[in-house]
């Protein structure tokens, strides 16, 4: 299919709206992506036609909802090339997925064990491991980053040893857009017998991870970053790991037999899906994956690269700009500051002109501390953004700079 951005934009009703009397220019895609009509229709159809609790009812609606939900799981399995559908666990999102794994490892770690995280992590990828280490007596080690925003792999080599049990790294940094060399990171971790969890929240909108080829032990993401709804995400885990980890929550659906003496846990994936799940969310997640695949990830990557190069070269013409995260391997995210102007000031004025960007620390305070800055302005692009929007963003930015100097 030819990539036609004008046709694609018609799929997204929200892109037609105005903000503060100006056409919306949405450049906060790394925080959440917008939802196409195709996914909205699936949500409306679910609640209009077959809303039911799943896996329990014998009636038609329950059967239809169960089929659609399990069909979505298989779509996701196929998309990520997992070996089995039951290796895909539905969660409320990336943070929940990470917590399921962290909680599970609490019973596997002991004092003296080591957990490695990267310096490029989102808060949600640091806090659960700190809690885990406090609970188990394991210690937390950090792979440092370079000025370009890349992980220093020689330091990673030095950290790895036979006490390393877990390595946690994001596939792509949310604050800087750096694509981390996760295949190498995984291979090295496996050579000392450590498991690897990859946070794919920022990667899944831009590329198609192949979990078997990566040989990753756990891979997690959220649907709302890939044109799906909020409140749903997934945890991929290798079968043998998911069997090893204890369940995260007790409740309905995760049990097989209950007596007052003992409860037998259900098989995968239900062991980790206690209670009534986000049925509609799961089905819409599947629809979002379909939508993205219809456009095609190669086309998406090509076009977004074009946007990134164009925006970068236009931004670099502005006096006093500093872009953070200058790796050659990065996605369409630009984190920057202009001179000493506070990112908050720029974000506020940009919003008045209809331009949505993120400002602040991007839940990545350690990265901001590393650069010794209060935060950045982050513009992040998706395949539905255009060069015309980038031009308008630059005009708005120049106007903001003028007002603030």
């Amino acid at each position, binding site marked *: 299919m030819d990539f036609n951005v004008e046709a694609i934009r018609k799929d997204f009703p929200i892109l037609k709206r105005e903000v*503060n009397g100006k056409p919306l220019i949405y450049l906060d895609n790394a925080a959440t992506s917008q939802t196409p009509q195709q996914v909205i229709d699936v949500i409306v159809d679910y609640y209009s036609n077959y809303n039911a609790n799943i896996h329990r009812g014998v009636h038609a609606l329950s059967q239809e909802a169960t089929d659609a939900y399990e069909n979505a799981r298989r779509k996701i399995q196929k998309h990520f090339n997992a070996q089995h559908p039951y290796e895909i666990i539905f969660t409320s999102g990336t943070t929940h997925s990470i917590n399921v794994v962290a909680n599970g490892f609490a019973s596997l770690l002991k004092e003296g064990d080591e957990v490695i995280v990267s310096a490029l992590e989102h808060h949600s990828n640091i806090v659960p491991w700190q809690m885990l280490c406090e609970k188990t007596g394991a210690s937390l080690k950090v792979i440092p980053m370079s000025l370009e925003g890349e992980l220093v792999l020689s330091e990673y080599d030095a950290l790895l040893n036979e006490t390393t049990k877990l390595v946690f790294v994001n596939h792509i940094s949310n604050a800087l857009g750096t694509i981390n060399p996760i295949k190498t990171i995984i291979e090295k971790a496996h050579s000392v017998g450590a498991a690897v969890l990859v946070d794919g929240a920022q990667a899944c909108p831009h590329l198609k991870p192949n979990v078997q080829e990566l040989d990753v032990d756990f891979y997690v993401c959220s649907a709302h970053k890939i044109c799906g709804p909020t409140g749903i995400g997934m945890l991929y885990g290798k079968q043998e790991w998911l069997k090893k980890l204890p369940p995260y929550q007790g409740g309905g659906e995760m049990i097989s037999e209950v007596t007052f003496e003992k409860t037998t846990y259900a098989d995968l994936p239900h062991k980790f899906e206690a209670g009534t799940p986000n049925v509609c969310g799961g089905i819409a997640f599947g629809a979002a994956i379909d939508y993205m695949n219809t456009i095609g990830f190669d086309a998406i990557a090509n076009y977004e690269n074009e946007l990134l190069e164009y925006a970068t070269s236009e931004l670099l013409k502005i006096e006093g700009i500093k872009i953070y995260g200058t790796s050659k391997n990065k996605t369409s995210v630009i984190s920057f500051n202009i001179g000493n*102007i*506070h*990112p*908050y*000031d720029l974000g*506020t*004025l940009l919003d*008045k002109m209809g331009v949505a960007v993120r*400002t*602040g620390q991007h839940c990545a305070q350690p990265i901001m501390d590393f650069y010794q800055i*209060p*935060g950045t302005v982050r513009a992040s692009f998706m395949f539905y953004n255009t060069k015309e929007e980038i031009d308008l963003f630059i005009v708005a930015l120049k106007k903001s700079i003028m*007002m*603030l100097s």
Partner: protein
Amino acid sequence: MTIAEVQNEIIDEFSMFDDWEERYQYMIDLGKTLPLIDEQYKTDDHIIKGCQSKVWVHADMKDDKVNFTADSDAIITKGIIAILIRAFSGQHPNDIIKADTDFIDKIGLKEHLSPTRANGLVSMIKQLKMYAIAYQTQLK
């Protein structure tokens, strides 16, 4: 002037502007008139929590009137705190405690009152009132 009178004066000034640009430009200019906090008080104890930018506030009392000084590392935030301080400074603590802050809405800065805004205007108002409460107890 009473707090209400100062607030009305500010409303009048802002009513001269037709669009957001002029309003924001004026707010930025007001930030430049902010009575700056003494460097010795620019410590973590004086930072107002809940703001994406840093805001330091200090207060002292002379002749039963509270005087505020402040600073921020962001220009717009500096304008916002300058407006608040202009309304509250030189007033009796009890009047500050009782003062309403609807004028923020009337000068077209309503969006800054939303709890989702990162500038923490609500936290700023709370902090100024906390100072007033503290000084009010000294008067009793």
